[in-house]
């Protein structure tokens, strides 16, 4: 045991190793320390082991995992530092929620759906004997709800989680973590799935609470832009190891490790990008006029109009619920319950694919959000890419095969993968296959629906590059649907901002980003974290 020093770290993790029960390593000796009031960001892509590392700080290991060496030392506010992994289950439990707190990734799954939120916060206080009486605890519940910016009244506390929005649920999760005034808080991707405005609110709350109460925070994320907004220091994880650790500014500006550099370069930046091909842009390929969709009382799209020229890319920007996917599906013919017209090079298209001619079907193609669900798991890549040709052309089998092989080359997918099933490919490879399927009929319009949001940052960048190159090569008109305005300069010539089913602003990317005219666009730009 070290003797008391004036400033000790609130959390120290050294040479932590975690194995699966079968013995394969998940964490290969992870070390970091966080001082009180400091925010350390733990950055990594999926599968890097960052969540395992975060949970290990609380002495918790998910089923199938076990610690295999190393130490976790936590310092409670009112006591000696303790070795968390050396403690029995009962002592660890006394630390959790009291000294070491956790904010989960998805509050919708982590809040008990059958308990009122006030109850769920009070529960932590009771478990750790916070306060002398019930009144004192009730006062603390109200206080901490206020601290995270939620109403503290009785009525609000009596709500169930499903009666709150995603952002409110996440703030309840944060209130739960901060209720006992812990010395360490582990936040596991707390803003994933929230829109940027709510994300900013949550980030501000976390920053304020950690600074004000001298809490050490471990902020786990995959998003480097968020790191620059909240973290003092950053540790970059890859394959169960920390490859680089240092001051946030330093690591993001002058990354030392090759992997960090790769990550930093891959992050789409609002101000970055540029050098896009000039569209030849005089032929109008796609025109949407007065498109409206309603489900009962609920109006998903209101009188939407837009045009896309050949070789041009339109960024269709909208948060979840804005109607952006509905709009692109209407264009593709997958949603026939709409009014208004969709014209392809001057000819009106039928609302449903069943009424469109083969030529029209070939001309409008769609790439889906998740390559994990857009390819039939029981078909090989080559079979999946061949389907559109089989259904929409009269080509003989040999010619179809030839065309499939050419298209796979075009999306830089090795021909050796053609005979594989989707689950034998990585996410990026699958998305290339899905793009190949859309391109195999040489469409005039390519609709890309959030095609990068299911992918890791480094893969996202390569897919975006591929799409830009293809557009230049083939002169395809493209509609790029996304929630991420930071992608704008990287892919698009023009931008259309969709909010609540209406297009609130449209114009060339440069104009909209530098001089947004609509209040909502300005708010979005202000809340998008920059590196």
């Amino acid at each position, binding site marked *: 045991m070290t003797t008391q020093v004036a400033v000790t770290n609130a959390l120290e993790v050294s040479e932590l190793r975690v194995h699966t029960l079968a013995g394969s390593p998940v964490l290969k000796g992870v070390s970091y320390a966080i001082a009180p009031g400091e925010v350390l960001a733990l950055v990594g892509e999926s599968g890097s082991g960052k969540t395992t590392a975060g949970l290990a700080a609380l002495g918790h290991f998910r089923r199938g995992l076990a610690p295999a060496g190393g130490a976790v030392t936590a310092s409670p506010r009112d006591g000696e530092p303790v070795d968390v992994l050396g403690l029995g289950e009962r002592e660890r439990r006394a630390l959790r929620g009291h000294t070491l707190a956790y904010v989960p990734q998805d509050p919708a799954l982590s809040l008990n759906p059958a308990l009122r939120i006030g109850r769920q916060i009070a529960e932590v206080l009771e478990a750790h004997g916070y306060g002398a009486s019930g009144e004192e605890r009730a006062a603390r519940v109200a206080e901490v709800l206020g601290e995270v910016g939620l109403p503290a009244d009785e009525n609000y506390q009596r709500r169930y989680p499903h009666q709150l929005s995603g952002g409110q649920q996440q703030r309840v999760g944060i209130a739960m973590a901060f209720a006992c005034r812990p010395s360490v808080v582990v936040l596991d991707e707390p803003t994933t799935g929230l829109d940027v405005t709510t994300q900013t609110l949550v980030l501000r709350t976390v920053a304020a609470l950690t600074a004000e109460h001298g809490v050490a925070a471990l902020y786990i994320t995959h998003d480097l832009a968020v790191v620059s907004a909240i973290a003092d220091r950053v540790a970059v994880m890859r394959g169960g190891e920390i490859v680089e650790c240092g001051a946030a500014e330093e690591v993001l500006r002058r990354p030392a490790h090759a992997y960090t550099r790769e990550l930093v370069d891959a992050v789409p930046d609002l101000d970055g990008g540029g050098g896009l091909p000039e569209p030849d842009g005089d032929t109008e390929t796609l025109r949407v006029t007065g498109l409206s969709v309603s489900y009962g009382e609920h109006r998903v799209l209101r009188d939407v109009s837009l045009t896309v020229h050949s070789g041009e890319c339109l960024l269709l920007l909208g948060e979840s619920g804005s109607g952006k996917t509905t709009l692109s599906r209407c264009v*593709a013919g997958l949603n026939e319950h709409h009014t208004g017209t969709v014209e392809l090079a001057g000819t009106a298209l039928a609302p449903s694919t069943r009424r469109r001619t083969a030529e029209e079907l070939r001309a409008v193609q769609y790439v889906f959000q998740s390559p994990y669900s857009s390819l039939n798991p029981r078909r090989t890549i080559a079979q999946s890419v061949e389907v559109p040709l089989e259904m929409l052309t009269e080509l003989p089998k040999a010619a179809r095969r030839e065309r499939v092989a050419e298209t796979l080359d075009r999306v830089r997918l090795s021909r050796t993968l053609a005979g594989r099933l989707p689950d034998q490919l990585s996410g990026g490879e699958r998305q290339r296959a899905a793009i190949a399927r859309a391109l195999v009929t040489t469409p005039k319009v390519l609709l890309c629906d959030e095609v990068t949001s299911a992918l890791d940052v480094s893969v996202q960048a390569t897919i975006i590059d591929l799409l830009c190159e293809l557009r230049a090569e083939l002169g395809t008109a493209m509609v790029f649907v996304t929630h991420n305005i930071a992608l704008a300069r990287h892919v698009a010539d023009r931008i259309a901002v969709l909010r609540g089913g209406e297009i609130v602003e449209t114009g060339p990317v440069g104009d909209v980003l530098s001089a947004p005219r609509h209040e909502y666009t300005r708010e979005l730009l202000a809340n998008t974290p920059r590196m």
Partner: protein
Amino acid sequence: MTTQSTVFRRALSLPQAKIGLALTAVVVLLAVLGPWLGPWLTGYDTTGFAGKPFQSDGVAGTDGLGRDVFTRFLAGGATLLLYAVLATAIGVVLGTALGMLAGYTGGRLDSLIMRGNDVLLSFPQLVFALLAIAMLGPQGWLLVLVIGITHAPRVARVARQATVAVKDSDYIKAAQLYAMPRRRILLREVLPNITGPLMVELGLRLTYSIGYVASLSFLGLGIQPPSADWGLMINENRIALVVEPWGVLLPVLAIAVLTVGTNLITDSLASAAAGREKEVAA
């Protein structure tokens, strides 16, 4: 090469699958070869008089009508197995078709099919079979048909649920994008992706079919005398359980081993299919 075969391979690598296969194979061989082996081994046929009633003559004694129990035991599984397999086939094919149609189409057709299901589901399977037998008499085709029909709504539930789970997948949307006809989407896009739960259902329904056919025969309302049949033999010989237990024990054992065997195979298929789904999700 396909994932389908890996489900089978993974299922077969589980210990319960190997035990299940061995148990099932023993009884199936016995049931299929028994009718020929019996007379050749014992010298009696299934209905011939072999000795005084309930005596310990021969391998397993005689029954109440003085027939050789062992000969009848060897011959008693073939019809049961045939009926059970046919009933299962009817139930699974009918149920899968209805369930997929309901799940994929949705809307009014879905409610119509599923409400019809609810009505059939209100009868325990055996009771529904008894209702039919009371009206039309215990005939072979009726047993097969009525057990198959009572399986259908249960299979349909599973098929529908599995179909609903995949029908909003983007690969189905992609197929719609190419204006693929509905029948082809169902057969080529949906069906290959729901074989996991359907295989489990197939195994389960086979286990139950064996149980129902045997139960009905045991109740005297299935396969009729003087046929040699395991269920019927238990009914005929149970009054002499203390004196001559083999007439009851042999068929009970055979049915038990068979149903346990098929259930073990089913369970291994279920674990393999669930494992596959987990992997895909991960």
